[in-house]
């Protein structure tokens, strides 16, 4: 008899090892899952941060005041004032008077200044709009909701503590007390923030809006599309259908692949040196921005276009040629229509990428502080991502909220474009 208890049999050893190996297998799999979870966790964290910071920007704290539209204070004729006079009238004083009337106990210059600071310094503009639209209100007393100052806004939304002297709270004890009184009277309310979607940039967070940037982005992307789409499609047609296989064609292809990987900031340097300094185009204009973005997106569109044309089976081409079409007729009447969904999908994705591009636009001066809404692609303008960058640099707490809101708007546009691309692909995609 051989003592077998002392010796571990090969099968037993294998079983032991197998256990270890299976454990290693499970560990490896868990590692993979946790990598994915970590990456998606980061994504979730990013979106939650943006949402948490930005959702409140869509409402704005307003203060209700009984404003006496007194002709004398305004400095206009009591009877039939001219439109110009109404436009240039002293609305600031009217609002201050209304504020003093609401708190008759407040005396002294310093205190009164603090009191007036509860209302946004841009409130006079909205009051002007009311009166210019309806001159009959002159001389009457109206109960009007006016935009509150951004410090009040932040305190009301709870982004900074209502305790005086708390971190980030720039309101004084007096101002907080007045704010409490206003709130008790029901004269403070949060209303939808229309300024965010109708005005241009401003130094005052409560008046700063995105509309100028949206219009600027629209102009830039239109220029990009106008330049990039014809050139991109023509290049893909040439390379895919006409180009002979020679070194010249190889050179073009290598160039396109390399351009796709050049850092975008280098394209900004190109735009600065060529478009601004050499051709003398205006700085900060969507025209130049659009041209630079077109150069950046061109490789994307060409690569997508070529892939789409490659997917059209040769039999279609042969059938067209067999029926007597010329090569160009074959392309325009058959290959292009059949590959158009793919080309358009690639174009939309390229445009979406161009919409989010920031660095090259900084190079060509699109970081200027511009209040006006651009009227043409030649006017100085901001674009959405640059607006995000500019607001992110501003120190006021209220701009953190606006920045997040601007990011949400930007992401919304990007999501729409991507959804459009996916739908287009789903609807028209053809498997041959």
């Amino acid at each position: 008899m051989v003592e077998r208890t002392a010796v571990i049999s090969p099968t037993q050893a294998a079983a032991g090892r197998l256990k270890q190996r299976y454990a290693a297998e499970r560990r490896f799999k868990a590692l993979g899952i946790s990598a994915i979870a970590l990456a998606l966790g980061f994504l979730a964290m990013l979106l939650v941060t943006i949402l948490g910071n930005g959702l409140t920007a869509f409402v704005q704290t307003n203060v209700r005041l009984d404003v006496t539209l007194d002709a004398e204070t305004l400095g206009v004729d009591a009877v039939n004032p001219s439109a110009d006079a109404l436009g240039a009238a002293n609305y600031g004083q009217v609002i201050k008077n209304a504020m003093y009337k609401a708190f008759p106990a407040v005396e002294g210059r310093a205190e009164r200044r603090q009191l007036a600071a509860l209302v946004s310094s841009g409130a006079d503009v909205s009051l002007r709009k009311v009166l210019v639209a309806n001159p009959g209100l002159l001389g009457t007393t109206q109960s009007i909701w006016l935009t509150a100052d951004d410090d009040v806004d932040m305190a009301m939304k709870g982004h900074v503590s209502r305790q005086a002297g708390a971190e980030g709270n720039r309101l004084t004890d007096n101002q907080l007390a007045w704010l409490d009184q206003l709130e008790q009277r029901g004269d403070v309310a949060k209303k939808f923030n229309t300024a965010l979607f109708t005005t241009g940039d401003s130094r005052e967070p409560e008046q700063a809006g995105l509309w100028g940037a949206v219009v600027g982005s629209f102009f830039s992307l239109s220029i990009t599309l106008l330049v990039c789409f014809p050139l991109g499609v023509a290049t893909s047609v040439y390379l895919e259908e006409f180009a002979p296989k020679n070194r010249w064609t190889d050179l073009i292809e290598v160039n396109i692949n390399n351009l796709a990987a050049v850092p975008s900031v280098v394209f900004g340097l190109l735009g600065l040196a060529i478009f601004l300094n050499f051709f003398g185009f205006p700085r900060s204009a969507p025209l130049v921005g659009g041209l630079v973005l077109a150069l950046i997106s061109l490789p994307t569109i060409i690569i997508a276009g070529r892939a789409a044309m490659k997917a059209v089976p040769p039999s279609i081409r042969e059938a067209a040629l067999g029926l007597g079409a010329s090569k160009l007729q074959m392309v325009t009447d058959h290959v292009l229509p059949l590959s158009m969904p793919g080309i358009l999908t690639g174009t939309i994705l390229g445009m979406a990428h161009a919409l989010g591009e920031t660095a090259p636009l900084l190079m060509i001066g699109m970081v200027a502080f511009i209040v006006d809404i651009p009227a043409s692609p030649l006017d100085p303008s901001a674009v959405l991502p640059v607006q995000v960058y500019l607001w992110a640099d501003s120190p006021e707490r209220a701009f953190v909220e606006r920045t997040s809101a601007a990011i949400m708007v930007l992401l919304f546009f990007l999501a729409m474009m991507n959804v459009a691309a996916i739908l287009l692909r789903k609807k028209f995609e053809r498997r041959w």
Partner: protein
Amino acid sequence: MQLLTLMVVLLLLTMFGYRLGRSRALASASGNPRLLHSLPSYHGYYVALWCGLPAVFILAAWLALEPSILHGMIMASLPADLQGLSEERLALVYNEVRNVARYGHVPSLPAVGDAAQHYNNIRTTMFFSVAAASLALAVAALAYAHRRIHADLRARNRVEAAVKVFLVAASTMAIFTTIGIVMSLLFESLRFFQSVSLFDFLFGVQWSPQMAIRSDQVGSSGAFGAVPLFAGTLLISGIAMLVAVPLGLLSAIYMSEYAAPKFRAVVKPLLEVLAGIPTVVYGFFAALTVAPFIRDVGHQVGLTVASESALAAGLVMGIMIIPFVSSLSDDVINAVPQSLREGAYGLGATKSETIRQVVIPAALPGIVGGVLLAASRAIGETMIVVMAAGLAANLTANPLEAVTTVTTQIVTLLVGDQEFDSPKTLAAFALGLVLFTVTLALNVVALHIVNKYREKYD
């Protein structure tokens, strides 16, 4: 506005030419299109091309030449005392003339006002003569082409030849862009290297580009040693790669080897979302959330962490690059032939053993290529570092300190009102040249490796 009107008129004329050519072709075949060599519409296009192209060429040439012609004429007309100014002052004067003329700014000198008046006069005269010339040419060419239309005209071949010229021209655009990039970077860099030596730039360890405006100011020299920038770029990109490569590779492995198709269909697009988020958003996230978080954690443990630490910027950049690494590795892992896996299973290997000992080694060249591509992304990434990395050029390997990068410096040197000719702004182009060369080299190597690898299993 006038230009737009002119273009609309030209467009209408071209469309008119199309109709005219078509109807004349049909008339010349007495209404029977089968007698024509080309379809009637090609005759239309033929006339339209003749009508539109020369006029467009004239307009384009004028648009390109207008600034320099104007510049020359205005300069010649300036009074003698202004002409005696130095070149830079003269450029400023000209700039003012332009602003006064175009945007109605108030002139600082009466001579400038006169010049602005002159500028507007020349500009209007030139525009109307060019408009007249292009319209006359369009009409003449239309008449010429119209006369040439007859049944045997090979209109289709002519039109197609023109289209092919356009196709070839469009495809050279990529080459012109590359040439444009290289030329603009090279010329401005050469100007930079006239004042700063190449050796000092590449190997100097002192970077302080602030140049004094007056010569008696302190620190007027400006130092352009770019080593701290290169080190900072490497540090931040290194951290980014340390985050992105393991996470990207592991998720790609899980996705291609383990995940059920349904899981894959949901998770893969979600991961791609990370690549679609604009970099300015990551920059905001890094500066607002990640950097303060890391600083606070560091303080808790008793470390001093800069509020613009390289770690924060690198970490966020790494997250951004995860999808690049994962989708590129996904491709190469899927390209490994199934037979290799089955061979390993047949020998009794578990799935993870197969992956680690067979699939990954087989896919390694492709993965390395993908990682190199991702690295070139990280090096060229701008917005995250502009918003979350520091501006001070520290030469350090400590990820908790603030460092600056090549791209950050390019942006900070060029944003703001600078005189364009100072070494400070030109330094940005020299940095751009370095950036372009390095990323290009990385890409060429990476694409070469990836292609080589593809051929192996095709």
